[in-house]
């Protein structure tokens, strides 16, 4: 299952957590696709070198969909959402190496934690 889809996801049908489309159970392949897209702006507080806290607000889209045998997708509207996205987290610098941990919610309906690694100059 791929978690990356930079083009976004086009779906043809919608279902809920029962996976039924208009009362019918589609022929699924078993492939499940998750995509998310968000843009966040905020502030960062340096507590002490090398630790800093950060908080931000923005807009996010998250989609879960299932592939059918004909290659089309069914979007699960019970676990897909879009709207206000809030992020709070911290990062730690080891020399040029930066490790970050953020907690993100979209529409206060969908929550996730993100662990990041990067280089700082």
């Amino acid at each position, binding site marked *: 299952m791929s*978690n*990356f*889809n*930079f083009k976004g996801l086009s779906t043809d*049908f919608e279902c809920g*957590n029962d*996976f*039924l*489309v*208009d*009362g*019918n*159970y*589609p*022929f*699924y*392949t*078993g492939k*499940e696709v*998750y*995509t*998310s*897209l*968000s*843009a*966040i*702006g*905020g*502030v*960062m*507080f*340096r*507590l002490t070198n090398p630790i*800093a806290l*950060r908080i*931000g607000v*923005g807009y996010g889209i998250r989609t*879960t969909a*299932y592939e*059918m*045998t*004909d290659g*089309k997708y*069914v979007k*699960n509207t*019970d*676990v897909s959402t879009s709207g206000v996205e809030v*992020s709070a987290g911290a990062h730690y610098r080891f020399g040029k190496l930066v490790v970050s941990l*953020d907690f*993100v919610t979209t529409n206060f309906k*969908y*929550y*996730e*934690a*993100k*662990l*990041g690694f990067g280089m700082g100059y």
Partner: protein
Amino acid sequence: MKKTAFILCVFSALMLTTCKKMPELKVYDLKLTSENVAYSQTSAEIKVEYDYPTNLEYVNVTMSESNYFGYSIVAQSEIIDSVFIANFVDLHTDKKYYYKFEYSNGVNVVTSEVRSFYLDAALVTLPTVITMEVSEIQGTSAICGGEIIDDGGYYVTGRGVCWSTHRNPTIFDNYTTDGMDTGSYTSTMTGLSEHTVYYVRAFAINEKGTSYGTEYEFETTEGGGVVIVPTVTTSNVTDITSTSAICGGVVANSGGADVTARGVCWSTTENPTISDAHTSDGTGTGTFTSSLTNLTPQTTYYIRAYATNEVGTAYGEQKTFTTEQDSPNAPTGAINGLFTINENGDQVWFSQGNLQYQASTNTWRFADNQWDYVGEDNSNISETYSGWIDLFAWGTSGYNHGANCYQPWSTSITHTDYFAYGDVNYNLNDQTGQADWGFNPISNGGNNSNIWYSLSIDEWDYLLNTRTTISGIRFAKAIVNGINGVILVPENWISSIYDLNNPDSYNTDFDSNTISLSVWLDTFEINGAVFLSAAGNRRYGTSVEGVGTYGHYWSSTRDYSQENMAQDFFFDNTDLRTSVFHRCDGQSVRLVLDAQ
């Protein structure tokens, strides 16, 4: 602390874990649990059972002589529950056919792997049927048919034609039923719409499945088209008695013109026509019922339904029946209708009227008519009275059987005077039956001693509440020739003789049925019906009450709980039941005679 603004953009990045539990997708494969191909010499039926959690919207079956499906035919299956059935026609023996399924659940479509079967002439199990060409096409009807040339080794249990406005009609569309077994048959398609294209094909069914013939297309005309004689079928003959029977028919097709007459005709020779005895049962198409009357007992008749329009008269298939043996003729003084009075099947005739007595001549007789009653003149009762009386205290047969009061003119109001045989425990028909009025010779009832008798209360009860008649009716309240009373219908009464209102209703009014004298004589009495009039009763010696309002008819049975009472049959405008009444009171007596 140093504040630094930041911008974070995330694209499709689930970096660690989600905090919300995601539902687990279930994938169901459509499973075919059984798959069967049956074929005739020219057709095949593919029947498949499947397992899937929701309904399939359609299943198309594609068939070809090539596994590349270059030239193919597609049949849409009939889906019933978890089974789909597809039929193909115009196939040939000793060829291999390839087929595949295309399932749709209403969202997306899946195509199965290719299958095949070899149409082996030696392994045919379905009937082989040929569709006849469509003829006599009119605005709302057409004629077709089929011929079953091979039953596939199994008896053909159904055949006909099926039609629809779409191609490949099946028996799930419109269809006719035209008998069973092999051979040719003609089918009439009715209820068609004018100026409409239809597709029709013959079908035949045996235990292995259904096969179809070649499909024909036709278009109904706009308006009447060619007018032909109607199409009519003869119903089965039922309710056969010695002199009557029920039949009827179905006019399935008017022939394109108004059906102006219909009914059944019958004769003792074959192929009866409307020149023979016949009924007239209305006009138009549809089902009708016919009553045959005045038949001769123990005689074989031939009967056909008929229908007439401007072109001519058409007849249904001929049927035959034999009337029953005639009932034994009722003896003098009896109504010629049989009534069952117990579970043993014993039957009786009723006397022609209520029992009457003339003291001055010591003469017993039955009233001339069933509705006759003496009424108020019963108050003149005496040993020397020269008029007729018809209300008697219980057990006053005139024979000295041991009771203090045994004379028919007795008016004592002391109930102990009316113990049959002088004993509280006896019924009228105990001992040798002398306490029953029927012990006497009845002047117009054969004039022999001890042939008539009174019904016991159990026999009255069985007569009114239990016995089975052909019509399903036992009694009805009525006004006959202006007199209130109750009609008892005999065992062989058929409802079509007269449609009685509120039959077997205990609390209905007398005016439920008002029957004239002529209708009574010509329709009821001639067919054995009995009428019990509301003759009232005599109480406290000579006081006559309830004349024309209610009826009390003695049974031969004493009351087992009250020594002053005997049991009777009672009715009025709101009630009808077995009852008990004082032995000393005068009530009507209606005698019966065992049928031989």
